[in-house]
């Protein structure tokens, strides 16, 4: 099976303020390459400031990369062409409560991406919204509710619905599971796994929690200071971490596993 998303030599650096003779740069992300297939999950772990979120922003198009190419199904994604990109690559953020506009009903929230990106008429759009809400385990009656009427777990489902409503191929989860309560988190993991099976989604999971990473992902990328330290199959890396940094990261969570 051919790769769905191909990233080659992607990097990002910011220009620091300075005189134009000694222009300095701060490198947020060193050149990195990877591939994801459909039905697969790539997990990205690393400490704060290691470039995880920069990577997510570059992929989703919120930042323009300094070098490198992103190919989706063999087609190069243009950094200016947002329409093409936002249909295929969607993102879910950590704090679902604050990413939903409080003054819009759920129907309007989900209608917005459809209006901007598709040519469907109102009837079809409503039909699609209903289907999507049912897919993520909500009721069609929830269409007329406002975000504040939902609990945290339900809000996370709504942001998931907003992500999948355009039938994307890649979803980026930026710490989307971190702030949920444990029982809601496992519900959410189940839902994400089901959707992956049904729709053939590819996930890019950015997370701290190694136990979720181990359960959820096929491949793992470890970042440190903007550099790829290790990249490979999740099971292999977690069993035999080669780099010192990975070992440290695993040790800091692993003692709790060994305790049993």
């Amino acid at each position, binding site marked *: 099976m051919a790769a769905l998303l191909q990233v080659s030599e992607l990097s990002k650096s910011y220009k620091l303020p300075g005189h134009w003779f000694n222009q300095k740069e701060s490198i947020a992300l060193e050149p990195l390459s990877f591939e994801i297939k459909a039905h697969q999950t790539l997990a990205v772990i690393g400490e704060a400031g290691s470039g995880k979120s920069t990577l997510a922003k570059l992929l989703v198009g919120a930042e323009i990369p300094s070098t490198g190419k992103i190919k989706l199904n063999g087609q190069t994604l243009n950094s200016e062409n947002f329409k093409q990109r936002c249909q295929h690559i969607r993102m879910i953020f950590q704090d679902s409560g604050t990413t939903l506009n409080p003054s819009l009903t759920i129907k309007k929230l989900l209608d917005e991406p459809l209006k901007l990106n598709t040519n469907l008429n109102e009837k079809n759009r409503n039909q699609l919204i209903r289907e999507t809400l049912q897919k993520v385990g909500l009721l069609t009656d929830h269409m007329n509710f406002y975000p504040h009427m939902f*609990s945290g777990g339900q809000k996370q489902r709504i942001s998931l619905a907003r992500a999948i409503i355009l039938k994307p191929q890649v979803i980026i989860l930026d710490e989307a599971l971190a702030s949920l309560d444990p029982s809601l988190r496992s519900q959410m993991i189940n839902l994400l796994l089901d959707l992956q099976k049904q729709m053939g989604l590819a996930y890019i999971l950015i997370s701290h929690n190694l136990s979720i990473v181990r359960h959820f992902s096929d491949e793992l990328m470890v970042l440190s200071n903007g550099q790829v330290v290790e990249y490979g199959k999740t099971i292999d890396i977690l069993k035999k971490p080669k780099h010192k940094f990975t070992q440290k990261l695993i040790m800091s969570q692993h003692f*709790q596993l060994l305790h049993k």
Partner: protein
Amino acid sequence: MNLLDIRNLSIELQTTNNSILAVDHVSLSMKEGEVRGLVGESGSGKSLLAQAIIGVLDERWHVHADRFHWRGKDLLRLSPEERKSIISQDVAMIFQEPMSCLDPTTTIGEQLAEAVDTEQLSGYFWQRNQQRKNAAIKLLHKVGIKHHDLCIKSYPHQLTEALCQRVMIAMALAKRPMLLIADEPTAAMETTNQGQIFRLLASLNQLKNMSILLISHDLENVTHWTNNITVMYSGQFVEAGTTKQIFTEPYHPYTRALLNSSPKANIELPVKSRLMTLPGSIPILQHLPIGCRLGPRCPRAQQACVKAPKVSNFHGHQVSCHFSLKDTY
């Protein structure tokens, strides 16, 4: 003797129309030198319970208890002033998000010096300032900050989150408390820093024989550090016992579900398989189910569950359920 002994504590919120029972008959006891975990999801009333112990709830909240003893003294019978003096002497609390708890306009050194008790100082008034400073530096050393010169001069925003939490712990230690209540001390922290903070708390517990009440929403995070665990759900007492009892043989269906739902506790589980979960979500305070509040979500619920179950005790392992899992082991 128990340090803290609470029996059937209820906390009621008085609104204009009706009253809501936010915490419903919860018991909690702590011995000296014990580390107890208080585990519950959001809205389970664990932070309310901690605030009730400290006594910082305002007038809208009514606290009733059959017994509320601190080292043999009944706190509910004391006047607010007496209670305050006892609690401020013996109990300290640290919160989540240490950055937002520290004063952003004052240096760490000044804030720490403020926390040092005047009674611990001796000598003439012109010596006091120097002593206060030295006490602050000593406190920083106690929590493992070696470069005290830099730390004392800096403002909270200049330090990392883990360092800020250390400073908070140092402030809590200034009074030499017997009980430290840590309300989610590592929420939203990097895992490497989480380990540091937990290790610091554990060493304080062992070296100073300080009891710690560790509040967390995640069962799997605290199990390594606690002797005993109390589990709460939606304001009700669920289960209490030693960490091993809770982890290997949970009697309550809710604890069982919590353990089953975490991928960490089930290493044998095949990758990418479905996790076991409870259906539905946590009820909100305005619409609490009657009887056992887990009822609508519980896999073992039967007709008897519309009445709140009594707490039964099996060799120190307390569980509040009509149909406990005890017989299945």
